[in-house]
């Protein structure tokens, strides 16, 4: 039984500290939709998504009202489309547009899964598919794309890495009128997970059931607020408090996930134990790190503080949920976190520091604007570095950079809403072109060989 202080604490978390369920994401398998032609497949895909997710928005809104906790996003993830269109890859765009149309009609904000898994090699049909990504992202609204180019088991597919540098640049060019917005919907992964509820990297893995509900929680503001009460505590006590707070946040997510799955006739998949910031003040992961005693996120000490935060969130969350998964941990997207935006604008955090931070947290170089004239080979090299961190450390890493067309260091890009705004950050000017052009596969590390 709870007491009145528990009730008031929950109310305060929701009303004043931005506690919310960040996303209820329904994973839908598209494998039963494969037909003889692209047109028939697109029609089947559209029908299946519409049928599976028809009550998603209403159910989430009902749950939000009944439990009194905001559910910010309702989303759908699907089987990697490259598998569904393998027989007619050049026409994959038709399926992409059908998915985008379904997303619009369902009233969800994003649909993820225009994806390919090429971590050990790129098949001919996948190469054709990858080349369709810039076109599809520039002609759709809600569709998100991701490509897995490496894994701890298989190594890094450097031919795919080289190609993705070009594809990111092409996507930016085709959405130049919107500051390269297409790139905000394109993630390049190493060790991509099959049950991620967060965009833009969500897809529904082939090992998953027909329809699954995965939930992503949030609550950086709640953690920051809790830490304000122990300004002089040592880091052991701070970690303990973060654990307890993460437990409460995750329990709310678990409750919503199970109830949503029951009402939607889907399986309960996982709860993603995440601290996901938004550009709103009081909803920042960077500010948690500053609350721990850093003058500004990006200074020396940031990596250690983030490592502690990330671990404590996981430990608290694991106990709170029967099944955890997804990316799980603290997110550090630059454009989506007010503390990050301010630090980056003041030149206090660099790409190199962000890279170091990705060694100890959930994802990777996320929502970072770089100069529009950055060469494709440099973007590929950034991807290769991140993939190497993920491969060697057995964790997911990702790159979502936006080479902002026509913009240079000091300019700003603005996407609005949850995607936020970001200053254009400098990249290293040295040329990695020859390294990237070598291609081939970087072999998997010895410690991955466990069979």
């Amino acid at each position: 039984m709870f007491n009145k202080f528990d009730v008031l604490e929950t109310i305060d978390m929701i009303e004043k500290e931005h506690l919310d369920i960040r996303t209820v994401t329904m994973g839908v398998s598209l494998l039963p939709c494969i037909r003889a032609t692209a047109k028939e497949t697109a029609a089947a895909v559209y029908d299946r998504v519409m049928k599976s997710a028809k009550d998603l928005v209403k159910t989430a809104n009902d749950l939000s009202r009944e439990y009194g906790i905001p559910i910010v996003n309702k989303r759908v993830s699907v089987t990697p489309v490259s598998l569904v269109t393998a027989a007619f890859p050049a026409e994959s765009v038709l399926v992409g547009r059908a998915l985008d149309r379904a997303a619009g009609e369902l009233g969800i904000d994003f649909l993820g899964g225009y994806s390919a898994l090429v971590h050990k090699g790129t098949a001919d049909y996948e190469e054709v598919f990858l080349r369709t990504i810039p076109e599809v992202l520039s002609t759709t609204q809600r569709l998100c794309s991701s490509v897995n180019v490496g894994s701890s088991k298989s190594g890094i597919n450097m031919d795919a890495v080289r190609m993705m540098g070009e594809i990111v640049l092409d996507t930016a060019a085709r959405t130049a009128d919107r500051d390269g917005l297409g790139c905000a919907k394109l993630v390049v992964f190493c060790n991509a997970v099959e049950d991620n509820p967060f965009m833009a990297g969500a897809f529904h893995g082939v090992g998953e059931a027909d329809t699954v509900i995965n939930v992503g929680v949030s609550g950086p503001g709640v953690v920051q607020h809790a830490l304000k009460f122990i300004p002089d505590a040592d880091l052991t006590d701070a970690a303990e408090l973060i654990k307890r707070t993460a437990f409460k946040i995750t329990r709310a997510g678990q409750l919503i996930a199970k109830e949503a799955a029951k009402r939607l006739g889907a399986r309960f998949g996982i709860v993603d134990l995440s601290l996901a910031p938004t550009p709103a003040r009081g909803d920042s992961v960077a500010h948690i790190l500053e609350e721990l005693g850093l003058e500004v996120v990006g200074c020396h000490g940031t990596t250690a503080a983030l490592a502690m935060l990330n671990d404590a969130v996981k430990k608290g969350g694991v106990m709170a949920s029967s099944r955890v998964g997804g990316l799980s941990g603290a997110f550090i997207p630059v454009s989506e976190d007010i503390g990050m935006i301010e630090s980056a604008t003041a030149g206090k955090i660099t790409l190199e520091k962000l890279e170091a931070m990705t060694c100890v947290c959930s994802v990777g170089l996320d929502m970072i604007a770089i100069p529009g004239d950055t060469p494709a080979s440099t973007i590929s090299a950034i991807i290769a570095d991140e993939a190497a961190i993920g491969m060697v450390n057995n964790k997911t890493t990702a790159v979502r950079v936006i080479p902002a067309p026509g913009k240079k260091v000091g300019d700003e890009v603005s996407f609005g809403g949850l995607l936020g705004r970001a200053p254009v950050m400098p990249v290293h000017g040295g040329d990695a072109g020859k390294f990237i052009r070598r291609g081939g596969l970087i072999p998997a590390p010895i410690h991955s060989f466990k069979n």
Partner: protein
Amino acid sequence: MRAVVTVTGSDRRGIIAKVSGFLFEHDVNIEDISQTILGDQFAMIMMVDTSESKEDFAALSAALEEMGKKIGMTVRLQHADIFDAMHNV
């Protein structure tokens, strides 16, 4: 269904009367009431049972919130499970 009504805002006369009147009209049984004053902020928490109510829970919650606005208070009706989940192991 076990649920929790919370009422927060500046203290004034008639708050309990208004809220309990609304609950009575909608066949919601009040099982427990507690209240605290934090500074000039009034906070009331009611444990209620909505199983006799003919209205849909979401609609009831929305109507109660609307009624709260009329008396200048923030009034919420929430499923009790959210508090159980967050505060009990």
